[in-house]
Each structure stands twice: as C-alpha cells, then as structure tokens.
C-alpha cells in the first residue's frame, strides 16, 4: 500500500506520524519512507538515515542554435511561461521561468531548439535501520518543487509498504506528493486553523479520489470541532494523540513518537491496518494476485 501523510495546516505532526508508522512497520514488512517535502525535508532529522546515493534532478531547458534560427518566433509564441523571447535578431532565454514542457523544441520548424538539462535539486537515498529512506532537496532559489517531488516518488517500490511524508498546505506540491497513493492520512489539531485547512485537505483528497482518515494530534488542546466535522463529512478519525509535553520534548530532541515511547508501536500498526482496510484496492497485477 502507498500511504501518504498530509495535513493542510503546517506543523500538525505529519512527520511525527509518518516516521512513527515507518518505525512501527520496520521488521514486519519491507518499508520505505519517501519524504516528499522537497522544499523543507525533515524526516531525515528523526530517522537519521545513512545516505548512500545522491542524484541530481534535471529539467530540460531550451538551447537555441542561432545558426539555424530564422527568428520566426514560433517558440516564443508557443511558450506560455514567457521563458523565450525573440527581440529582433536576438533570442533571449529565461531558464528560471522554464517549466521543461518541451513545446518550444517541438514547434521549431528549423529544429533550432534542443533541450539541455538544468539541475533543480537532488534525490538522496539511504537506509535507516531496515527502513529504506528517500528524500529530495529542491535547490535554493528554485520555484518549482514538482520535478524533484516526482523524482522522489519514482523511487517508490510498489511491493513495499510505502509511506509518503507530504509537504504542508493544499497546493501543487501536496497534490504532487499525494496523488497516486491508496490512502491519505490527514493529521490535524483540534483548533479553528486546523479545521479550516483540514477541510481543504479533505476536499483535495476527494478530488483526487483518494480515501482519507484523520489523525487528531495534540488532542485535548482545543475543542470538538474536528470531531463534528469528521462526523458530518463521513471521514473517520483513526487516531488521537494527546497533548503531552513529553512527546514534544522528545521530538524537539530529534526523537519521534514510536522511537521515544515504544509502547505506541502497537497503536501505529493498528493505524496502518485501519488504513489498509479503507484504502483503494490495488489493481490486479498481471499474475492476478491482489497486493495489499
């Protein structure tokens, strides 16, 4: 099963939940943790993997051979991102605006536009105990996390238990991280801010057709609005983690919940099972067996 952990509001406890799930499953079955918050990866702080490989992530940007170019401007007219401009007899490229869609090279009648790679980040892989760990780091100053997120997800092993730690928010980087997963755990806190962004996150998962369930973190710190909302929307609350200063202290020292309080292991295994029962059944493989 591919399970993603998202939230809406930031700072609710996605990484705490994702890393705890990974540690609970470790040893039970092959498990992978993909930290898809490529702008601010943090799962490595909790799991401390030893990184064994680092690969650059490239997006294709145009390169114009001005010997072949006739300044017909088809490329700049085609580009919706304004990354190519033709001014008189000069072709100007703005690679930082380029989304690597390839349209310019496709439309050029002189085949003057070729593509070269521009590095936008890296993907790193390693092991944390038996947990196979992958994360991405978007290069500083880059505006688009998408290509790096996709590069991280490309390392997913569908035969393993895959846990995706998504970025906060409800926008493109989250969609990129969460899409294609079989189940989405939404971690929230029982406050008006938590509820507001949870509602957006639930809508997002519904639009993507991914079944979801809620984890209420810091339960007891707010009110019952989350529970009311979940009952109305028919979204199950699968776990409640109480407001407990000791959990926060451990986390601040780089120790996630299951690592610092191993008694929680059983609870997280149950959480995984609950999610599995509610998840989209995977498509039949060619051999006809049903994967979990």
């Amino acid at each position, binding site marked *: 099963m591919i399970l993603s952990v998202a939230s809406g509001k930031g700072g609710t406890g996605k990484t705490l939940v994702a890393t705890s799930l990974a540690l609970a499953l470790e040893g039970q079955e092959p498990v992978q943790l993909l930290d898809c918050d490529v702008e601010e990866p943090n799962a490595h702080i909790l799991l401390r993997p030893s990184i064994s490989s680092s690969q650059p992530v490239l997006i294709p940007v145009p390169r114009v051979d001005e010997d072949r170019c006739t300044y017909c401007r088809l490329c700049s007219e085609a580009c919706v991102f304004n990354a190519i401009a033709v001014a008189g007899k000069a072709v100007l490229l703005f690679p930082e605006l380029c989304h690597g869609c390839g349209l310019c090279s496709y439309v050029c009648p002189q085949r003057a536009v070729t593509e070269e790679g521009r590095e936008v980040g890296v993907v790193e892989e390693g092991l944390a105990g038996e947990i196979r760990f992958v994360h991405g780091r978007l290069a500083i100053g880059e505006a688009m*996390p998408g290509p790096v997120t996709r590069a991280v997800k490309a390392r997913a092993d569908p035969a393993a238990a895959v846990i995706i730690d998504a970025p906060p*928010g409800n926008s493109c980087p989250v969609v990129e991280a969460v899409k294609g997963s079989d189940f989405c755990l939404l971690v929230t806190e029982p406050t008006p801010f938590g509820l507001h962004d949870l509602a957006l996150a639930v809508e997002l998962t519904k639009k993507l057709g991914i079944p979801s369930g809620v984890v209420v973190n810091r339960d007891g710190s707010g009110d019952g609005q989350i529970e009311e909302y979940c009952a109305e929307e028919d979204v199950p609350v699968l776990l409640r983690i109480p407001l407990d200063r000791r959990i926060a202290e451990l986390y601040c020292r780089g120790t996630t919940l299951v690592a610092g309080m191993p008694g929680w292991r059983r609870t997280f295994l149950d959480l995984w099972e609950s999610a599995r029962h509610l998840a989209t059944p995977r498509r039949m493989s060619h051999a006809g067996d049903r994967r979990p």
Partner: protein
Amino acid sequence: MKIAVSAAGPSLDSQVDPRFGRCQYLLIVDSESLAFEALENPAVTSPGGAGIQAAQAVVDEGVEAVITGSCGPKAYQVLSAAHIDVLDGVSGSVREAVEGYRRGELKAAAGPSGRPHSGMGPGIGEGWGRGMGGGRRGGPGGGRGGGRRV
C-alpha cells in the same frame, strides 16, 4: 518617431502607468503627429514573465523607445536586445510624457529601474505550484504577495 508609453488608460490624457510589465495599456504613439493606437497589455494577467511578454509586444510594433515609470530586469533585457531605449522615471499624462520626449527632456535608463515583480500588488501569489491560495503554514492562505518576489 514611433514610441510606446505604458498607460493606465487608453487615451493620451491617461496617466503614465508606473509599471511597464503589468501596465493596463501600451500606447503606441507617433511622437510628431500624436497619432496613436492603444493596445491592451497582453501580459497583465500573466503569472510570470510579464515584462518579457510586454516587451515582446512592444518590439513587434517597431518602436524606437519605451516611456514608463519603471521597467524590470527581464523586460529591460528584451528591450535592450532589440535596441529600444527605455526612458523611465516618467509620470504625468501620456500627452505630457510625449511632449517631454519631443523636447529631449527624458533620459534613457542605464539599466532596469524596477525590482523584479514590482508590478504585482500585495496578496497575489506567484502561481505555478507555489501555494497560491492554499494555507501553507497556519490558517487560510492568501498567496504570498507583498509586491516582491518571495
């Protein structure tokens, strides 16, 4: 001479728009006869590269100079490549600006005057996957605006 003036409205009595890339109109004016054509700026709703798009529109018109309040670095690059003078720091009506141009009172800019994205007002996100309108941290999102690149 054929010149372009960034304008807030479609007439010679409209104010010079202080932004080039995201101005409402580009007035293409014959500085001698004051005959003119008002173009709606195609770049006004562009999420990125607005200056580039506006500059291209102006290059297509075959103008020799651009009169504006401020012109960002990418627009400046495109206009320079086409050997078009950028006369910035100009305010007042379009008519007054053209008059000033005819009298030789306007100076060509040595470089871009505007900061990147200075035409975008507060609260407008950059789009293209950067969290437009989604609460990224703490509560409802309203984009990341502030008129500067964040």
